[in-house]
């Protein structure tokens, strides 16, 4: 299953090339990269530590990929999420979705990120000039995930 959790960085170009290698039926590659910012909620962030729940996190991501494949006609899906210490500018997460056409690939990529943000057990702790703090979950992320449950959401 194309889900990986790792401390080391990833090369999105190499990952995308590998994903569509020897598959000339792929006509669309949609991707998302999440990046560590240097500020959050108006406070400077100098460093962040990402924690996960080994075992459950992989299973949760695999379930999200299975759900995406059930909703859209996709070919390959890859999710890479980093854990450990990250600095502003560092890549955090990569989602790549391939399919025959862009509509389904775009939709599935966004769906996977929305579900990852609300269902995959990862937690961020930020270092700020005022000290360390755990990032609070956002209601807007719940709303983003929730909209995929409306009847219209499946139309790619």
């Amino acid at each position, binding site marked *: 299953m194309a889900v990986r959790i790792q401390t080391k960085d990833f090369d999105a170009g190499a990952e995308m090339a590998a994903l569509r290698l020897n598959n000339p039926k792929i006509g669309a590659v949609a991707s998302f990269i*999440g990046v560590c910012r240097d500020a959050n909620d108006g406070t400077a962030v100098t460093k962040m530590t*990402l*924690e*996960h*729940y080994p*075992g*459950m996190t992989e*299973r949760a991501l695999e379930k999200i990929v299975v759900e995406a494949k059930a909703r859209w006609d996709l070919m390959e899906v890859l999710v890479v*999420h980093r854990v450990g210490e990250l600095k502003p500018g560092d890549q*955090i*997460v990569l989602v790549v979705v391939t399919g025959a056409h862009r509509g389904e690939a775009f939709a599935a990529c966004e769906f996977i*990120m929305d579900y*990852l*943000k*609300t*269902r*995959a*057990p*990862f*937690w*961020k*702790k930020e270092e700020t000039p005022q000290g360390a703090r*755990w*990032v*609070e*979950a956002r209601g807007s992320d719940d709303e983003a995930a929730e909209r995929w449950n409306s009847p219209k959401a499946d139309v790619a």
Partner: protein
Amino acid sequence: MKIKVLYLASLREQLGKSGEDLETSPATSTVAGLRALLMARGGAWQAALAQGRALRVAVNQEMAQPTTAVKPGDEIAFFPPVTGG
């Protein structure tokens, strides 16, 4: 019955431990029962696990509800709402 309990992320820091093996009575046969048992320790436990606190629970690495059963050998994890991505 013997169960394994895990505390993750901010909850681990509030409680000062990452997990423990517990020997519990049949009264703690649900997630809600286990939460009540842990809250009864008072202090940081009562504060961190209080009703109304945003808290998620997984049983055997699947998201659980207060009514979810807890059986011998289960792994129950308490953690805050997730913030990955």
